[in-house]
């Protein structure tokens, strides 16, 4: 192995807001000392609430936002040191797909031209072969060649997200930053796009930074997970370990708040207090302490580092992480459903496979 595809160390970004003559601007610490790595073919799931800084991290990887501090190594290249010409070469290898498939496609450009533009820009195909490549890409994401002649408004949300993915794939990137790519989609369409991402990963070997607030989708796709709170990573672990045994109280709160498709008694629902912290905060201690059911006095005076808890690849920025009782995982296992439900699910899966058992004709009800 040649080391991780991407490694990020101590990434920080402060935004200055407002201010004027003789009035200092307010400083918002959006990202604060974030470090993580992505293996080739791996998926790093970055989760957290709005304002936690996860989107800013994604954009800094492509230098769509310039970091203030820290190091970004992509395949050994120091991304922050790149001149603008070299940056274009980087953006061929690292692509980004946004949440809103309506906002990220120009309504006046046919999708075939939208997909072709980056291929032409990077001269990846001779001019005469671009159309053929666009047709290949459409096929790869489950669309048809005739879709190339259509405009974005003629597509559904899920199809538009496929177009955005096809456009990103056109430059044969090694890493794709996916910023909430399925959050705006209906469940059945979300399942199609999640499957597409998993399939592309295994067929093309592409890696993902998968940014999402949906814990169930992250559990499904990610190989490693980082949980962000107030600009910092508060827990990182292999996905299986994080979901089986979350150690940071904030991770537990996110899991408890995630609605489960298994009805549960009202009493088991999470009692959640508070809102995400202000990015202008200057408090000394753990930024989650004010919402944390386990906070004790030392939590309010010193900010715990990410390796305050460490067990193999599992880290948590919490001084009480080791002593917390096991948490309830996302309680959505099919085993919790009725026998009749499970039987019908089995029948549905069987019926969808090729060579399914024959169907009886309709009864004359």
């Amino acid at each position, binding site marked *: 192995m040649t080391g991780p595809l991407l490694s990020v160390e101590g990434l920080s970004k402060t935004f200055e807001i407002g201010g004027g003559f003789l009035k200092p601007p307010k400083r918002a610490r959006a990202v604060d000392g974030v470090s993580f790595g992505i293996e080739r073919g791996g998926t790093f799931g970055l989760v957290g609430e709005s304002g936690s800084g996860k989107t800013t991290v994604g954009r800094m990887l492509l230098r769509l936002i310039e970091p203030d501090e820290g190091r970004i190594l992509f395949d050994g290249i120091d991304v922050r040191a790149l001149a603008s010409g070299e940056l274009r070469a980087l953006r061929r290898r690292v692509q980004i797909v946004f949440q809103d498939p309506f906002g990220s496609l120009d309504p006046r450009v046919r999708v075939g031209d939208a997909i072709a533009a980056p291929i032409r820009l990077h001269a990846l195909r001779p001019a005469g072969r671009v159309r053929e490549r666009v047709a290949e890409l459409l096929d790869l994401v489950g669309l048809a060649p005739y879709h190339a002649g259509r405009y974005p408004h003629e597509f559904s949300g*899920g199809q538009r997200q496929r177009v955005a993915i096809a456009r990103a794939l056109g430059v044969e990137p090694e890493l794709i930053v996916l910023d909430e790519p399925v959050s705006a989609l209906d469940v059945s369409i*979300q399942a199609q796009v999640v499957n597409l991402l998993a399939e592309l990963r295994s067929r093309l070997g592409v890696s993902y930074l998968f940014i999402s607030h949906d814990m169930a989708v992250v559990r499904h796709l990610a190989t490693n997970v980082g949980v962000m709170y107030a600009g910092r990573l508060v827990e990182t672990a292999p996905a299986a370990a994080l979901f089986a045994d979350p150690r940071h109280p904030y991770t537990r709160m*996110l899991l408890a708040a*995630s609605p489960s*498709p298994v009805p549960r008694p009202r009493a088991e*629902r999470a009692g*959640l207090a508070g809102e995400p912290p202000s990015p202008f905060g200057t408090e000394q201690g753990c930024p989650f302490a004010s919402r944390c059911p386990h906070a004790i006095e030392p939590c309010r005076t010193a900010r715990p580092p990410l390796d305050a808890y460490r067990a193999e690849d599992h880290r948590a920025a919490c001084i009480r992480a080791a002593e917390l009782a096991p948490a309830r995982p996302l309680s959505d296992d099919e085993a919790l459903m009725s026998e009749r439900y499970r039987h019908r699910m089995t029948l*549905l899966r069987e*019926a969808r496979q090729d060579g399914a058992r024959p169907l009886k004709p309709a009864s004359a009800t």
Partner: protein
Amino acid sequence: MSTAPLLDVRNLRVVFGAGPNVADGVDLSLGAGEMLCLVGESGSGKSVTALSLMRLLAPAAKLEADALRFEGHDLLALPEAGMVALRGNRIAMVFQEPMTSLNPVMRVGDQIIEALTLHRDLSRAEAWAQTVAMLRRVQIPAPEERMRVYPHQLSGGMRQRVMIAMALVCRPSLLIADEPTTALDVTIQSQVLGLIDELRAELGTAVLFITHNLAVVAEIADQVAVMYAGRIVERASKADLFGDPMHPYTLALFAATPRAGDVGRPLAAIEGQVPAPSMMPTGCRFSPRCPFAVERCRQEYPPLREFSAGHWAACWRAPIEECVA
């Protein structure tokens, strides 16, 4: 129960121009203080159904029904002035995106006071006091100060609380909530769901809750209606829908929801898409995507049948274990 339900909708149909019905034969019944979840994907007709209850459809839409009754009013016959007196007063609505429903250049307090004084003859001081009390009731911290802020100064969760406060300030008997938590973080979603549930119990407000998320349904519903392509395909109590799902579309929605056991295998996506109104299939509208469909499904639309008390499904093949050899 012998008393008439709060809301009684029978065979509701909505049609745009010469196309097929985008809501087709919808029956809904809601008692005082009940929580009914209307579940469906984009294009299922759930929002059109909700808007037609408020008579807020675009002028091009034609609304028909065998019955559309609310609190003893015939909403089909009611003149527009009567509808204005009901909207925001007896029936209120909360939408997905509070930023587009709130006036960006008007202070939050004034917007709620406007909604209140439209229907109530109150002095400015009384209206102010009731509005502050309502903001406090939806758990907005420092409500007196928040009265004076503009919507952009609030977080998404706080804006949705303001919307709920505005909807409930006249104490309506029916709240229509159209995907009110879809744009929110899970933590805030959980708080807002809890809030809606509490207010329903405390104020006796019936809620028609529209969502595409079965996990949200599991959290809050009493009764559930599943819509597909303009029609209700299954109607049941939450316990029956989750314990004994009948319609293949309901099963497919459940199957597509990621669960712990799905890690490492593809999710069970529903192949194809919801049909566009101009391309509605004949027979059962789900039949082109249904692995259990046979010729009859493609020819004849199945009416809702009652499988057990209060559990209805529109499928020739349900229960499916009886149609697999």
